[in-house]
């Protein structure tokens, strides 16, 4: 089975500091898509950032950026200037070019402390 692994079940960070969440995945395809979703206590799944595997440049969205290492099959999320509202469960997910399913990791619960 092609899997997505998040090795950090829980992490915490002080407000305004930087934190990195890890994600590794398994795939036999050359092109695919990677996503980070955020699930706050409200339960809503919110897309944070996405990356196409054929693009070497790392995606960036405001305070959120990724470190995509294709050879290592690693896709980490960096959150800069952490805010209290960043407290949530973060899920890494892999999508395929053909077929639409997303395969999710187990999630990392991030707590931002004041």
């Amino acid at each position, binding site marked *: 089975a092609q899997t997505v692994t998040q090795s950090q079940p829980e992490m915490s960070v002080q407000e305004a500091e930087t934190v990195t969440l890890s994600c590794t995945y398994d795939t036999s395809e050359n092109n695919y*898509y990677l996503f980070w979703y955020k699930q706050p206590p409200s339960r809503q799944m919110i897309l944070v950032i996405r990356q196409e595997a054929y693009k070497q440049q790392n995606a960036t969205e405001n305070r959120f950026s990724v470190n995509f290492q294709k050879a290592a099959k690693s896709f980490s999320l960096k959150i800069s200037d952490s805010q209290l509202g960043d407290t949530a469960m973060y*899920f890494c997910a892999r999508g395929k070019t053909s077929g*639409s399913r997303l395969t999710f990791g187990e999630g990392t619960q991030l707590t931002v402390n004041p």
Partner: protein
Amino acid sequence: DTAVSQTPKYLVTQMGNDKSIKCEQNLGHDTMYWYKQDSKKFLKIMFSYNNKELIINETVPNRFSPKSPDKAHLNLHINSLELGDSAVYFCASSLRTSGFNEQFFGPGTRLTVL
């Protein structure tokens, strides 16, 4: 202005009952999904429909039956509910089946089977 809506948001029922969860998207998307999030927050695809046709059917008990009356709706019927069906069920949609498509999630339905 809700993009993907689900009803109800909470559902408490007795073992053995039959229940339905409704999902609607107003984004004009072709593809819709059902995901199950278990008590450990793990998210897994159950079904996917493209323009009313079933394209993904994971190893889900046949007590679960999705129905898509039109491409804007994907309902989930569950017969003979069991304790293990307790979970949060998410509906999602994306513009197309293949390619770099963000999936938009509904707010989730928390199902509790007593």
